[in-house]
């Protein structure tokens, strides 16, 4: 089993694609350390015979008819874009 001391905020921030300042990193390390310490109580409970509940209400295989219908136009879909041109989202160059 892992230990909460292993929380490395700087590493997790990279996984989450979230730049943190040094101050934030330090603060979150301390604050979340306390939250995880509190969460330790979950491990004290014997749950070996218990199933996971991913949802409050187990419902499965919900389908609706696959019918075409009118939805947003391209222009509308682009209306909140930080940058757009020629009906496309403009993004930073990602390949050399």
């Amino acid at each position, binding site marked *: *089993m*892992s230990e909460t001391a*292993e*929380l490395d*905020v700087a590493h*997790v*921030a*990279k*996984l*989450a*694609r*979230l*730049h*943190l300042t040094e101050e*934030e990193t330090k603060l*979150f390390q301390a*604050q*979340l350390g*306390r*939250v*995880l310490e*509190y*969460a330790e*109580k*979950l*491990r004290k*409970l014997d*749950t070996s015979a*218990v*199933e*996971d*509940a*991913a*949802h*409050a*209400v187990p*419902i499965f295989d*919900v389908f*609706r008819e696959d019918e075409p219908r009118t939805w*947003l136009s391209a222009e*509308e*879909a682009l*209306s*909140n*874009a*930080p*940058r757009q041109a020629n009906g496309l*989202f403009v*993004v*930073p160059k*990602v390949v050399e």
Partner: protein
Amino acid sequence: MNLSDLTALSIAELQPFLRRREISPREVLEALQARIAETEPRIDAYLSIDFDDALKQAERADVNLPLGGVPIAIKDIISVAGQPCTCASKILRNYRALYDATVIRKLRAAGAIPFGKTNMDEFAMGASTENSSVKLTRNPWDTSRVPGGSSGGSAAAVAAGAAFGALGTDTGGSIRQPAAFSGVVGMKPSYGRVSRFGLVAFASSLDQAGPLTKTVRDAALLMNAIAGPDPQDSTCLNETVPDYTADLGRDLRGIRLGLPKEYVIEGIDPQVRAAVDRAAAHFNSLGAEIIDVSLPHTEYAIASYYMIASAEASANLARFDGVRYGHRAENPQNLFDHYSRTRAEGFGPEVKRRIILGTYVLSSGYYEAYYARAQKVRTLIRRDFAEVFARVDALISPTSPVPAFPLGERSSDPLQMYLADIFTNAANLAGICGISLPCGFAKTEKARLPIGLQLLGKALDERRIFQIAHAYEQSTDWHKQRPPICGETSNVQRPTSNIQL
């Protein structure tokens, strides 16, 4: 009647005037606009208001519809076509919703007029509305205190007469707790009772939208409008919607109410505890039987909740990548830098904390220890409720262990803020329904602070919960008390002529 008294009315009290055409939807909106101009400088409940659009809606309003011509305030996490939907976050500062959430479509179909978006904790993460990136909302009962959260703007607006009713969302208590702090009624429906389509997702297995209103009847009226199946939300239950007002007025003989012994904890404000004890005795005098019950896994609910809610939030908020909408960082060095700085600039501290926590508990090596474990505990919490609901019709408890706390008191300590959800989290984990309604006041040196009574009911038993809540409300006068911000007298005489209640 005097138009300035209009905004003190509940929706059910307003409707006869509209239906008899003694006042028009336009006049209602104008009275509300004047009221908001008075209250907003003191409570700051709204992030945006579009009266021009609302007046256009008012012109075509059909007052004979179930909510015909009634203006409703909307938490700024629910999409209203053409209006901002910022979640009180910088990352969505310039975002406008392109379509109506299902709850908005249903409100409009019932004749209601969505007219303004209310303040909230950023992405609904918080219990005080202090995590809004825009402004602080103040409690109408004492403006040095928080209105609760995350639906704090909706609660404060209703309490101050700056809205006839409002929608909020509740992921761990975010409708019920601000309702308690602000002295109004707030209902969290059972999971799957109300569509989540068009809500900005926080924790998808926990989120539900619901009403905040002045009275239990008004909450039932709003639930009649917004509940029901939705082909656009696969988690929305395919169950018919009963008339939630049908049992209002039925007495409580034969009703069994459970008092969970685990909800009597250290740290409950003595005035809160006394008020809830009095409420239990009052229920008894109304004919209900009070039974001591046990929810043995209560002490694990908050830990389980924060693991699950943060995990789901970290996944849901991954969509804010600066590509299709929202804030984008300037001059990125590379793709990683584009994502990392866009998100760093756009999200506030609490949201960042939860993204880190959620990413951590889902990451390889820790998933089993935290996330999977929290989901197993969730099963145990569901079983606790299933067992007690075999014996009782509803559970009663405080909504919050304390009344509204001073602005700034808890904002530096996330764990303390999380513990404020102690009585509300479990209902979201179990998917059951719950309501908070006023049950008294805690007196401080300079103010009276509302105390909220929580009733929890089994999944899809909202109708019963409304019946029980209504019986309590109508035999007490807590809901008639108005905050000082509503005028010099705290118990406003409401116009009563010819009103059928």
